[in-house]
């Protein structure tokens, strides 16, 4: 019966309470003191501690001896249980959304190109946040001086936004029709047809393996 009370002697109960309430591991001498037991009972108290240790051996809480002192500790195999994972929903900043969209439409694209399109410098944080979302990935390096990383979207991006293919992103006419883009745009205003093929383009070099994931 797991619900039977398990039995402890009066002294074991006291030891249990003392060790539970203690703010640090306690040595035998301190325990004897607290129990107001004489030195003669050192052996007996020691025996009780070992008995308690045995009783708790298979429990979620163990009685352990560290540096000669006794303490209750949660069982080592249950450590992961003591980490509660909490998922915090977070909204992407406008800058991050815009950068993500530019990467989606203009991929493969470099940071410099993103900045050129946005007209402002992209902070390192923005790309970091996007990397954390798992929606963008470094694809390769552009064959230009400096070999900047080219960015593209991942399958996770398609997944999150519910696209079967990147080509389902609305084009210029659809954006105009939805009212998101003004219809009086300059004639040369273009929205590229996005493509996220896994193969590198002619002007892309593979990422060095050790640099993958870096900026």
């Amino acid at each position, binding site marked *: 019966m797991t619900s039977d009370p398990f039995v402890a002697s009066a002294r074991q109960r006291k030891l249990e309470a003392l060790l539970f309430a203690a703010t640090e591991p306690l040595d035998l001498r301190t325990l004897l003191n607290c129990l107001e037991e004489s030195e003669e009972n050192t052996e007996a108290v020691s025996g009780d501690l070992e008995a308690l240790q045995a009783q708790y051996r298979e429990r979620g809480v163990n009685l352990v001896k560290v540096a000669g002192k006794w303490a209750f500790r949660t069982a080592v195999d249950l450590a992961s249980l003591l980490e509660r994972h909490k998922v915090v929903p*977070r909204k*992407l900043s406008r800058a991050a*959304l815009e950068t*993500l*969209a530019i990467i989606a439409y203009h991929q493969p694209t470099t940071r410099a190109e993103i900045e050129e399109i946005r007209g402002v410098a992209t902070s390192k944080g923005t790309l970091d946040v996007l990397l954390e979302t798992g929606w963008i990935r470094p694809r390769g390096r552009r064959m230009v001086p400096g070999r900047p990383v080219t960015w593209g979207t991942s399958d996770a991006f398609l997944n999150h936004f519910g696209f079967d293919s990147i080509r389902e992103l*609305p084009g210029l006419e659809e*954006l105009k029709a939805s009212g998101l883009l003004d219809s009086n745009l300059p004639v040369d205003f273009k929205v590229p047809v996005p493509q996220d093929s896994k193969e590198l383009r002619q002007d892309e070099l593979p990422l060095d393996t050790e640099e993958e994931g870096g900026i």
Partner: protein
Amino acid sequence: MAKNKDRHGSGEQEGENACHSGVTDDNGFIVDLEEFEGPLDLMLDLARTHKLDLTHISILYLAEQFLQYIDKARALRLDIAADYLMMAAWLTYLKSRLLLPDENSTEEEPAAEELAARLAFRLQRLEAMRGAGEILLEGKQLYRDFFPRGEPEGITVLRHSRYEADIYDLLAAYASGRLRKVVDIVRPGRERRKVWSIKQARQQLEKIIGFDCQWAPIDSLLVSFLSDPDEGRTALAAAFGASLEMAREGVVELRQDSAFNPLYLRRRDKRK
């Protein structure tokens, strides 16, 4: 009465309590109104002192005790707070109602017995709450009678971000970002190029004629440079001025077949 002893014993108390040292009457009873938290407190104390049972209370007797006490305090010229005097007045009224037959009582006025019962109830209730507070303190308390674990490992909360964005946000950010750039280009253009300078027009013409020696109408040459059709007029005017200047310098040749016809321009062939 422990309370009186305590209070008297604490002697010099701060502030308003300090001026009222206790005054003992013939029965060794201390008159010190400052010791009480209002008339109800005083009445409860009197009830206890006179061993009155609050459940079968003799309100009349308690009222008399109260009035005597106030009289004593008055005789000793102690300051008496208004609420004690109000209570005294009310108890005098209650006493008279209880003593005198209720001949001229009206429907609107509650019976004297009801008034007395109401007072008895209030006293009982206050005493009950006082007792409840004490029972609460005598009961088990954390860190006095039971203890939590002294050294809890704690449960660590690991926060993971889950980013949220919907397709509308994404497209709206893209569209507004692209539009912002368009506005950036066009707006300063409009302001700056509202009026083309001759120098500006000449720079443009020099670029164009650099790689073409054919006759070309000035207006159509300029069109490719205009992001805003409204600028056509000022551009043409400036270009006309610039072309005259360039013709004078021998860089270009100009031709117009007749008045109001298109004005043609070409680079002068240096080999000629």
